């Protein structure tokens, strides 16, 4: 992987192409609709924040943003918490049915969300959770919990077993060992896993919109709703789109040094 001029050019061209659609969205969000339809402009000639102000002053948009962040946070906490002991067990112990169980967990990642849309609707309606943030948070556990177990297991395997044994000989109780000694050792892994849970819950749209109707409308649903409103409000949609990128951009900054390893499920 030597860095010649050719490499730099390839990389730069790729990154420019990658950022172009995002730049275009930002460009649109800073213009007015009359300005947009009047013709193409490579940059906003009269930049205005009027659409952002409109979103911040409309409670339905602000609420929806809060709803989305709430179910993503609940889901991330649940997924990482329940996955931690399981990942440890899968890596350290042999128990009846362990391989089958692990494979079954992974099969849940292969279930298309479309398959579950209808039964989820009925299930959460029946238990009275329909149209709450809990419905979406729990539904997203379907793919985030198995994913969290998978990633964390990779990071657990990177910690030598001798550490567990030494701690036991030194007389640490298991909970004490797990929380005070083991968790700090895989802190990076926990961070990366939380990032992935955040990411997949934040970007998912089909289940989130199916399981909510009015009280817990996610941001995506409010965007879809403003679609059908008379005429396309391109500038408003663009501004809303730009805002949905902010949480992701903030979160990724914290895990930027471990992100590559996380995508490899801690296995390189």
């Amino acid at each position, binding site marked *: 992987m030597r860095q010649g001029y*050719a*490499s730099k050019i390839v*990389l730069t061209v*790729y*990154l420019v192409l990658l950022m*172009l*659609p*995002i730049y*275009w*969205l930002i460009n*649109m969000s800073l213009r007015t609709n009359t300005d947009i339809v009047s013709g*193409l402009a490579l940059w906003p000639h009269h930049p205005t924040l009027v659409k952002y102000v409109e979103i911040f002053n409309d409670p339905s948009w602000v609420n929806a943003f809060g709803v989305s962040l709430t179910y993503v946070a609940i889901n991330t906490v649940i997924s990482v918490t*329940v996955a931690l*002991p399981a990942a*440890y*067990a*899968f890596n350290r*112990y*042999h*128990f009846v049915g362990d391989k089958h*169980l692990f494979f079954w967990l992974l099969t*849940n990642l*292969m*279930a*298309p*969300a*479309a*398959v*579950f*849309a*209808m*039964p*989820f609707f009925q*299930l959460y309606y029946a238990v009275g959770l329909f149209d709450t943030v809990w419905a979406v948070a*729990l539904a997203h*556990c*379907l793919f985030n*919990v*198995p994913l969290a177990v998978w990633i964390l297991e990779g990071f657990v395997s990177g910690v030598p077993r001798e550490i567990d044994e030494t701690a036991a000989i030194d007389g640490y109780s298991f909970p004490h060992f797990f929380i005070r000694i083991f968790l700090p050792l895989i802190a990076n892994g926990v961070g990366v896993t939380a990032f992935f849970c955040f990411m997949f819950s934040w*970007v998912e749209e*089909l289940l989130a919109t199916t399981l909510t109707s009015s009280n817990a409308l996610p941001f995506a649903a409010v*965007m879809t709703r403003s679609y059908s409103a008379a005429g396309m409000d*391109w500038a408003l*949609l*663009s501004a*809303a*789109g730009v805002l*949905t990128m902010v949480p*992701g*951009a903030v*979160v*990724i900054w914290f895990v*930027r*040094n471990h*992100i*590559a*390893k996380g995508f*490899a499920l801690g*296995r*390189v």
Partner: protein
Amino acid sequence: MNHKPLNNRAWFFVLPVLAFVMFSSIIPAMTVVNYSVQDTMGANSFFWNGDQWFRDLLDPSTEIGARFNDALFRTLAFSLVALAIEVPLGIVIALNLPRKGKAVGVSLVLMALPMLIPWNVVGTIWQIFTRADIGLFGAALTGLGLHYNVTEDAVSAWVTIVVIDVWHWTPLVILLSYAGLRAIPDAFYQAARIDGASRWAIFLNIELPKLQKVLVIAVLLRFMQTFMIYTEPVVVTGGGPGSATTFLSIDLVKIALGQVDLGNAAAMSLVYYLITLTVCWVFYTIMTQIERRRDA
């Protein structure tokens, strides 16, 4: 891996995971199985329908069978095209990323950005970007004199969906490949340089074997995601023009939530799920066999 102690109390560690995933997986799955063997006359009266829904689905001469067949073929074709572009492109870009330095962090953050955009917003971005009147991409293609119209021309719609997926998910392949490449010790490259190995020889004999493990993960994840693609085509093309980009997920949601045709939808769900599972399992088994043979 083999000297793990046997400890059945480890089950207690797994129970919370089991509880959460079971709730979201087994109960809905049973609902689907239930619908797949029953028919309804409306008003909550269900009766046993045996395997009739499945027979209809798998028989291309029925209406639903033909529809399923077409959607399945479209989805498989889409997965193959997307993989054929994303995997090589991802490897090439990863090879061109520097190993260390300031540029790495910035590049990785920029590359991960598309993956953090909600899928419907990805759709919105491209819906705008591909319009001939207000989008750069659409305007550029039309300006070059090409016939490009996402809502009316099937080829345009297909190209657009593929371009979106490549834009959205090639970074995943890049990040995975990059993680694999970084795990190669410098000594390997030095040895190759002393032997006077060509760039291509280094790639084939050092880098590609090291990449195999991460590429298996990449191909599996990408296959699953492309095979389940839903939100982006719904926003950008709405499954059209006609049914040119009606992939399996889209068709399923139309049947289940649009027509509330529960029997057909449930049977389709199960067959769809089994196909995904089988393809992943076959691919994974073959790859681990190859790996074992090479290591032996």
